[in-house]
């Protein structure tokens, strides 16, 4: 709590709550689509809910359902899921230095909720406060877990009745949320360079290697370039 007054905390939490509204909408839209897609792919309601609550990783869930639809072996599905979600290792490593004061069981619980969106909200909250706020961390995780799982069930039950997201522009909400949160984390030249080079590396990786490798490669290369180019000028913070 050092260095953070109550009004700063309230302001930061208000910002977190406002930012999370877009994430809730995103989770509801994509979660509904996943529920519907899983049903179309032959998954039961329980199996669909298990993917959203246990695996809890949007892109990997879609990939798994897609592979199930072509009768891929379980081993290849599990391997793809693990590879797709390897980027979460970077997210956890990024947040970890701020959470070492927390009990292990709390960190273990927070880890369960660490998706793209939860990481984005949490990182922005840490950047605003200069420290980790446990209530904010739980809220960020719940902001995706709760609507995602409810929407998954709703999508399985009634997804066919919903309009195609692209027809009402909702298909851009995911990249818009990631881009918006990324630029919100830019506090100095090193972060700006990391963002730009991370994006460029991701584009190259998506074209030359595989779209599933893009986030991991961009997330690894961007910070290296950000540090290298700013170290010459003596600025990395």
């Amino acid at each position: 709590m050092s260095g953070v007054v109550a009004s700063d905390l309230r302001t930061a939490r208000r910002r977190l709550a406002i930012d999370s509204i877009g994430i809730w909408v995103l989770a509801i839209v994509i979660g509904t689509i996943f529920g519907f897609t899983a049903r179309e792919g032959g998954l039961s309601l329980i199996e669909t809910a298990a993917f959203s609550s246990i695996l809890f990783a949007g892109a990997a869930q879609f990939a798994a359902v897609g592979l199930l639809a072509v009768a891929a072996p379980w081993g290849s599905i599990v391997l793809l899921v693990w590879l797709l979600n390897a980027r979460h290792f970077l997210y956890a490593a990024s947040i970890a230095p701020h959470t070492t004061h927390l009990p292990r069981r709390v960190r273990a619980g927070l880890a369960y909720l660490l998706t793209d969106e939860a990481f984005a909200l949490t990182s922005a909250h840490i950047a605003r406060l200069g420290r980790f706020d446990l209530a904010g961390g739980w809220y960020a995780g719940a902001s995706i877990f709760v609507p995602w799982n409810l929407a998954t069930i709703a999508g399985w039950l009634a997804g066919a009745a919903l309009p195609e997201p692209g027809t009402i522009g909702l298909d851009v909400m995911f990249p818009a949320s990631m881009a918006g949160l990324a630029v919100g984390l830019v506090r100095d030249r090193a972060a700006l360079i990391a963002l730009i080079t991370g994006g460029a590396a991701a584009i190259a990786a998506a074209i030359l290697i595989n779209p599933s490798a893009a986030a991991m490669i961009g997330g690894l290369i961007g910070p290296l370039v950000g540090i290298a180019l700013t170290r010459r000028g003596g600025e990395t913070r």
Partner: protein
Amino acid sequence: MIDPFRTDLVPLAILGGIGTYAARALPLLAPGVDRLPAPVLTYLRLIGPAALGAIAAANIFVADGAFRVGPEAVAVITGAAIGRWRNSLLVGMAVSVVVVLLLRATIAA
């Protein structure tokens, strides 16, 4: 007709979840993370903008394995800029949705 209570694929979700959880938990549970050298901590701090920017860029600039600048890219960049200016993610996302709808309507007309 799908039996809504069938559980055959639940073990697959669990297997996928084990590796996913390991990736998320190992760095958070590893001891001594706060005693890492300063350059490593700086690197970790920069992962946020780099990884999130990477996800956004791969989503909007790559389609069918090729580089592409379409209405989605313009909409997302416009939304991110306005969201940064207005200091609001929600405003930025709303702008992106409106811009992509306008551009698609313009292109279709």
